[in-house]
């Protein structure tokens, strides 16, 4: 299963070279063999997945194909409501979250023929970039034991990297799709704010939450995006902008596209390895015809503070009950981050929303008036040792969390589409990530650039040593 992508498996099922039942059984066998150690899953729905696979197989035998994902096994972060399965949101409480209907994004994948294997591990309440979880076990980095898997969509990153599932949905409020994608050596797309419906997913911060695909290839991310994107009457913030067919334009040459490497902020305190990986990718894209130059970006530090005010205020509001009634159930760093929201004034919260509008307008006008995309590292360093970054005291843990996600958080405030693609490995085998940010609703261009880099680089052939 480690050699399949969503695209290749879907084609093989359609060509009857492998059946939905065989694909599901193979994934479940890998889960049974590996997940006791990797901790990617919180809930494995083996019986349900096999029953659905048999139904999908019968439909295929009768010539009835549900859609482009017919029979493809997926799994999703454990904050999406999926009928019949508990939704812990990474907390101690098995059924922490409930929605009136299945998450729209998951339902659209199922309508397209996907088979949901289960629910994936995550940081408690999606608050944490390292992949540790005291209730469900720490999601293990599949490339190097003892190092962080990234978070908060940690299980999504691990499951896709080792072929427990062919793809996964994650959520991203400050980097929670892109960080585990980079740490686990896979592709993660945070689409434009509003591109994918948030209905049926636990909210952490309604102003900053984004849903998106985590996959083995850029093509798979494009395929999943085409299915899950689009307006949803159950999410008032979902956008009516048509997503088009980004998978169909992946092969379009990138010649003439203008790319920027930031002069400020994005390389401050970044390790030499992470910097060199982005520079190497930029050189490769230049050889393919892109114009690469440096550019000074509008102050990202202001965006970090604006995002912090919005995220803290909204998350403490949404999760006030568990913070006030059952604080002992929360990890100390999560509790600390939520409690801060109670100290933020209405004045500062509202001003942050107003300032965000202005900063976004300025960024879009200034930056995308000059270039088509911005290249940055996803993580400022290779995945660090989990025991080091999660060592107390709590204030130090929170500082390390903030530092590790400092390159991703500005783009949540801006709402722009950002793709994280593997950018290479350190000599000791830890993955690095390249982020490609584009103009609003222009996922097609960031996916095209990511695909061009992916095809030119040789990282796709590497497999985690599990």
């Amino acid at each position, binding site marked *: 299963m480690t050699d399949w992508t969503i695209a290749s498996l879907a084609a093989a099922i359609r060509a009857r070279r492998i059946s939905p039942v065989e694909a599901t059984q193979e994934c479940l066998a890998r889960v049974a063999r590996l997940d006791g150690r990797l901790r990617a899953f919180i809930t494995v729905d083996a019986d349900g997945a096999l029953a659905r696979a048999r139904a999908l197989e019968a439909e295929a035998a009768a010539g009835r194909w549900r859609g482009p994902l017919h029979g493809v096994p997926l799994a999703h972060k454990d904050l999406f409501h999926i009928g019949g399965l508990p939704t812990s949101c990474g907390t101690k409480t098995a059924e922490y979250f409930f929605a009136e209907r299945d998450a729209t994004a998951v339902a659209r994948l199922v309508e397209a023929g996907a088979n949901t294997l289960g629910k994936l591990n995550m940081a408690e309440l999606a608050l944490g970039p390292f992949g540790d979880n005291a209730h469900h076990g720490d999601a293990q980095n599949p490339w190097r034991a003892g190092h962080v898997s990234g978070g908060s969509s940690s299980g999504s990153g691990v499951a896709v990297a080792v072929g427990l599932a062919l793809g996964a949905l994650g959520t991203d409020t400050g980097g929670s799709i892109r960080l585990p994608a980079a740490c686990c050596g896979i592709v993660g797309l945070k689409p*434009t*704010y*509003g591109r994918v419906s948030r209905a049926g997913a636990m909210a952490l911060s309604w*102003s900053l939450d984004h849903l998106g695909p985590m996959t083995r290839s850029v093509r798979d991310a494009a395929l999943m995006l085409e299915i899950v994107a689009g*307006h949803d009457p159950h999410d008032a*913030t979902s*956008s*009516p*902008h*048509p997503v088009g067919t980004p998978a169909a334009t992946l092969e379009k040459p990138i010649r003439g596209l203008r790319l920027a490497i930031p002069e400020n902020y994005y390389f401050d305190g970044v390790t030499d390895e992470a910097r060199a990986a982005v520079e190497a990718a930029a050189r490769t894209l230049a050889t393919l015809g892109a114009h690469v130059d440096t550019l000074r970006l509008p102050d990202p*530090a*202001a965006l970090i*503070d*604006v995002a*912090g*005010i919005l995220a*803290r205020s909204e998350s403490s509001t949404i999760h006030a009950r568990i913070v006030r009634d059952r604080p002992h159930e929360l990890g100390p760093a999560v509790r*600390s981050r939520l*409690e*801060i929201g109670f*100290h*933020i*004034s209405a*004045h*500062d919260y*509202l*001003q*942050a*929303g*107003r*300032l*965000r*509008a*202005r900063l*976004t*307008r300025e960024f*879009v*006008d200034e930056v*995308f008036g000059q270039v088509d995309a911005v290249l940055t590292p996803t993580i400022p360093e290779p995945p660090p040792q989990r025991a080091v970054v999660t060592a107390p005291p709590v*204030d130090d843990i929170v500082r390390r969390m903030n530092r590790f996600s400092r390159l991703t958080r500005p783009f949540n405030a801006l*709402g722009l589409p950002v793709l994280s693609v593997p950018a290479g490995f350190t000599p000791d085998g830890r993955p690095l990530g390249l982020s490609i940010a584009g*103009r*609003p*609703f*222009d996922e097609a*261009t960031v996916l095209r650039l990511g695909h061009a880099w992916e095809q030119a680089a040789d990282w796709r052939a590497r497999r985690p040593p599990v």
Partner: protein
Amino acid sequence: MSEPAGPDGRPDPARAEVAGMAAVIERAEADLSLVEEPARFAAALDAGAPDERAPFRSSAPRSTTR
């Protein structure tokens, strides 16, 4: 500058973090236009989209005729 204190007068890291984040508001609010609203964030994304505009939601004022 000393760290902001809690009600008991001892340094309070939570209040210090809030004060740090809110400093951006103090610096910027003198320049924030009176017409600026949080909803203009979505309008900025719409305006920056390539090629087409949102078919159902527009940031531009709409006129109606009777």
